[in-house]
C-alpha cells in the first residue's frame, strides 16, 4: 500500500494521459456494445483523482519536474519526448480533468438514447487524451501532434450528427480554419528549431534557458516565430478573424460544446502562448493585444444580436478569449491564466444549463409533435417557473461571466482590466483605447448575458401551448454536475478575499514581473465602475426584454449587422472561397492540358524504353538465368542420389535390424504358461551348466 501511494508525479501524469486513451481503444474495439459510457467515465474519474492527488498537490508551488526520453535522431539532432510538470502545466492538467468529469456525468443523461452513442464516448475519450497530453508535453513537436489530435477530435465531435448537413459543413469549416492556425504553429516550430536547435521547453524557457542567453529577440526570425505561434493560437482560441468556426461548431452536442468549445480546447491557444511567453518580442505582444481587444469587442457586439442560445454563448466565449489574449499581450499572462481557469468553470456551467434547457424543450417538442427550433431564444421565455434550479444555476454562471462581486469572474476580470489600465498608464497616449474597449466589452457582456437570462427565463412564455405543459426540471444526473460547477464559479474556490484578486492562489503560483507599475487607486475604482455599469445594463435589459419596452427598431442596420456578424462569413465566402475556386479551376486546366501532355509524352518515352528493356531481358537475362537453372538442376540430382542411397540406406538398415530383433523376441512372449516354464528351466539349466563347466 505504501508503494502504491508513492507514485511519482511523472508516472501519475503519464497515467492521467493514458487512461482516456485506453478507454478510447477499448471502446473502439468493442464498437456498438459499449454505449453506456462507463469506460470513459471510469477513465476520466481515475485521471481526475490522479491529477488532483498525485500531480497537482505534489507539484503546485513546489519545484517543477521534468523527464525526457530520446525519441529519434536526425543527423546530429536528437528529438526527445518528455513530460514537463510545473505550476502552469499541472494547473491546466487539473482544470481539464475537473471540467471533463462533470461533462462526462452530464453526457450520460444528455446523450441518452442517441443511436451513435458508442462513437460519442469513443471520441470524447480521444479528446481527453489529446488535451491532457497537450498540457504536459515537454517537446513542442509533441505538443503539435497533440494539438492536431485535439483539432481532429473536435472535428469528429462537431460532426457527431453527421447526417445533418449543417453539422458536416460546420466541422469542415472548423477543420479548415484550424489548418491555417496549424500552419502558423508549424512555421513557429521551424523558426524556433532553426534558431535554437532544440524544441525542448525546459532547454528553451527553463531557468537558464537558451531564450535568456545572448539572444536577440527582436530579430526578424523571432518575430516570425512569435507570429506563427500566435496564428496557431488564434485559430485554436477563435481570435478575429479566424473566430468564424466557433459559432458554427455549436452544431455539435451541447455537452461537447461545453467541454471543448468553452473550457478546454479553445483555451489551448491561450495556454500555448503562456507556455512560450518569453519568446515574444514587443511587436508580437502588441499585435496579440490588438487582436485580443478587437476580438473581445466584436464578439461581444455580435453576441448581443444572436437569437440562438448556444451562439450567444459561443460569441461570449470568443469575447472572453479575447480578454485573455489581451492580457497575454500586455504581459499579464498570469491574469490570463487566472481568467482561463475561472472562465472554464462558469462557461462550462452556462453551456450545461443551456443544454438542459435545449434538452427539455426538445423533449417537450417531440412529445407535443410540434416543429420549432428548440435553441431559439424567441421561442423561450418564462422558463423560471418550470426549471427553477436550472434558472438559479444559470444566474450564478451569468453573474460570474458579467464579473459580479462574490463570483470568480469578478476576480479574474478585474485582474485583467486593472492590469490593462496600468499598462496603458505606463505607455500613455493611444494605448488607452485598449482598456477603454475592454471596459466597454465588460458592459456589453453584462448586457447580453442579461438579455439571455431575461429572454429565456423571465417574462411570458413564448412556447407553443401544447409543448409548454411538458417542460420540467432537468434530470438529477444533469443537475449534480451543474451544482458542482456552480460552486466552482464562486470566489472562495480561488481566493479567500472576495473583493481583491491579490490573494488568489493561482496568481500567487506564477511570479510574473510586470513591466508597468501598480496604481492603487485603480484597484478600488475599476471594480466599482464595472459592477455599477453591469447593474445599469441589467436594468436596461430588464426594461427592454421583460417589460417589453423595446426602444430600438429591430430592422435597423446596427442590429442586422450584429446578427449577421458584420458579414464576415459572407465576405470570406465571396472573396477567399471564390478566389480559391478560381485558382483551383485554373489548376484543373493546367493539369488537364499541360501536366497531362507532359505525362503523356513521358509515358510514350517510357513505353519505348521498356520495349528495349524487354529485348535485353529476353536474350541476355533469360540466357543467364537458364544457365544457372541447369547448373542447379544437376547439383540437386547429385544431392538427391546421395540422399536416397546413402543417408536413407543407413537409416533403413538400422530400422530393419531393430524390427527383426523385435520380431524374433516377440515369439517368446506367446502367453503359453508351459513355454514360459520351459524357458525358465532352460535358462536355469544353462546357468547350472555354466557353473559346472566353469
Amino acid at each position, binding site marked *: 500500500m505504501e508503494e502504491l501511494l508513492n507514485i511519482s508525479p511523472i508516472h501519475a501524469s503519464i497515467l492521467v494521459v493514458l487512461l482516456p486513451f485506453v478507454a478510447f481503444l477499448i471502446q473502439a474495439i468493442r464498437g456498438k456494445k459499449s454505449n453506456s459510457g462507463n469506460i470513459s467515465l471510469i477513465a476520466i474519474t481515475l485521471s481526475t483523482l490522479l491529477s488532483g492527488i498525485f500531480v497537482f498537490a505534489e507539484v503546485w508551488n513546489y519545484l517543477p519536474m521534468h523527464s525526457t526520453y530520446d525519441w529519434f535522431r536526425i543527423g546530429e539532432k536528437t528529438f526527445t519526448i518528455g513530460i514537463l510538470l510545473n505550476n502552469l502545466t499541472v494547473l491546466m492538467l487539473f482544470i481539464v480533468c475537473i471540467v471533463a468529469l462533470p461533462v462526462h456525468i452530464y453526457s450520460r443523461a444528455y446523450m441518452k438514447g442517441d443511436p451513435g452513442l458508442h462513437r460519442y464516448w469513443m471520441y470524447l475519450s480521444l479528446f481527453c487524451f489529446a488535451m491532457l497530453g497537450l498540457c504536459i508535453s515537454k517537446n513542442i513537436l509533441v505538443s503539435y501532434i497533440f494539438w492536431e489530435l485535439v483539432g481532429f477530435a473536435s472535428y469528429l465531435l462537431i460532426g457527431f450528427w453527421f447526417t445533418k448537413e449543417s453539422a458536416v459543413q460546420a466541422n469542415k469549416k472548423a477543420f479548415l480554419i484550424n489548418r491555417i492556425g496549424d500552419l502558423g504553429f508549424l512555421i513557429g516550430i521551424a523558426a524556433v528549431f532553426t534558431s535554437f536547435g532544440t524544441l525542448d521547453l525546459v532547454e528553451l524557457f527553463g531557468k537558464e534557458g537558451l531564450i535568456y542567453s545572448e539572444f536577440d529577440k527582436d530579430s526578424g526570425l523571432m518575430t516570425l516565430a512569435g507570429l506563427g505561434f500566435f496564428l496557431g493560437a488564434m485559430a485554436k482560441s477563435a481570435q478575429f478573424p479566424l473566430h468564424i468556426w466557433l459559432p458554427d461548431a455549436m452544431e455539435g452536442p451541447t455537452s461537447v460544446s461545453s467541454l471543448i468549445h468553452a473550457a478546454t480546447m479553445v483555451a489551448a491557444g491561450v495556454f500555448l502562448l503562456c507556455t512560450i511567453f518569453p519568446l515574444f518580442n514587443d511587436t508580437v505582444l502588441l499585435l496579440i493585444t490588438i487582436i485580443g481587444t478587437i476580438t473581445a469587442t466584436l464578439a461581444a457586439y455580435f453576441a448581443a444580436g444572436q437569437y440562438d442560445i448556444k451562439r450567444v454563448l459561443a460569441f461570449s466565449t470568443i469575447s472572453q478569449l479575447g480578454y485573455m489574449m489581451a492580457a497575454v499581450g500586455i504581459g499579464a499572462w498570469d491574469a490570463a491564466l487566472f481568467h482561463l481557469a475561472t472562465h472554464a468553470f462558469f462557461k462550462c456551467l452556462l453551456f450545461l444549463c443551456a443544454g438542459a434547457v435545449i434538452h427539455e424543450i426538445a423533449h417537450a417538442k417531440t412529445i407535443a409533435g410540434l416543429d420549432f427550433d428548440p435553441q431559439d431564444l424567441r421561442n423561450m421565455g418564462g422558463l423560471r417557473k418550470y426549471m427553477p434550479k436550472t434558472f438559479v444555476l444559470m444566474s450564478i454562471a451569468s453573474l460570474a461571466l458579467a464579473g459580479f462581486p462574490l463570483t470568480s469572474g469578478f476576480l479574474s476580470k478585474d485582474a485583467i482590466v486593472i492590469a490593462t489600465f496600468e499598462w496603458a498608464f505606463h505607455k500613455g497616449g493611444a494605448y488607452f483605447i485598449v482598456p477603454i474597449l475592454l471596459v466597454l466589452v465588460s458592459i456589453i457582456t453584462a448586457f447580453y448575458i442579461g438579455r439571455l437570462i431575461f429572454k429565456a427565463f423571465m417574462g411570458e412564455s413564448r412556447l407553443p401551448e401544447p409543448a409548454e405543459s411538458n417542460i420540467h426540471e432537468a434530470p438529477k444526473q444533469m443537475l449534480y454536475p451543474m451544482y458542482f460547477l456552480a460552486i466552482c464559479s464562486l470566489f472562495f474556490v480561488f481566493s479567500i478575499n472576495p473583493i481583491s484578486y491579490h490573494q488568489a492562489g493561482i496568481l500567487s503560483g506564477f511570479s510574473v514581473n510586470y513591466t508597468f507599475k501598480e496604481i492603487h487607486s485603480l484597484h478600488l475604482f475599476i471594480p466599482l465602475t464595472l459592477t455599477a455599469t453591469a447593474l445599469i445594463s441589467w436594468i436596461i435589459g430588464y426594461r427592454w426584454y421583460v417589460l417589453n419596452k423595446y426602444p430600438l427598431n429591430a430592422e435597423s442596420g446596427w442590429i442586422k449587422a450584429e446578427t449577421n456578424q458584420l458579414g464576415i462569413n459572407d465576405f470570406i465566402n465571396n472573396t477567399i472561397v471564390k478566389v480559391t475556386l478560381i485558382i483551383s479551376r485554373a489548376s484543373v486546366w493546367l493539369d488537364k492540358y499541360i501536366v497531362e501532355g507532359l505525362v503523356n509524352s513521358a509515358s510514350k518515352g517510357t513505353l519505348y524504353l521498356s520495349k528495349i528493356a524487354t529485348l535485353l531481358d529476353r536474350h541476355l537475362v533469360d540466357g543467364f538465368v537458364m544457365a544457372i537453372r541447369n547448373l542447379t538442376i544437376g547439383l540437386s540430382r547429385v544431392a538427391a542420389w546421395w540422399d536416397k542411397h546413402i543417408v536413407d540406406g543407413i537409416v533403413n538398415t538400422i530400422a530393419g535390424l531393430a524390427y527383426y530383433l523385435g520380431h524374433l523376441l516377440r515369439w517368446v*512372449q*506367446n*502367453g*503359453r*504358461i*508351459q513355454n*514360459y*516354464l*520351459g524357458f525358465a*528351466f532352460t535358462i536355469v539349466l544353462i546357468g547350472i551348466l555354466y557353473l559346472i563347466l566353469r
Partner: protein
Amino acid sequence: MITLTHFLVVSACIFSIGLYTVLAKRNAIMILVGIELMINAAILNFVAFGRYDKINYSGQVFALFAIVLAAASVAVGLAIILNVYRHYKTINPDQITDLRD
C-alpha cells in the same frame, strides 16, 4: 547293496518324468500329476538323506511335512483348474494365452 546313489538316480528319473509331464502334457490335470511327481522326487531325496540323521530323523519329519503340503497344494491346484475350466471351457493350457502381451 542299495546305496544312496541308487536312491538319487531313481529320484532324478522321477523328477525328469514330472518335468516332462509339466512341460509337454495338453491337460492341466496331467500337469498337476507332473508337479506331484516332482514333489515326490524331492521327498524321496529327503528320506534318502535322512539316514545320516539318526538322532532327530529330520529327513523323515520333513518328508511327512512335504507330503501334507503336497496334498494341500493338489487341492488348491484342482480348485484352480476347476475355475479355469468354468471360465475358459477348456483345460488345455495351449489354448489359454491371456498372458500374451
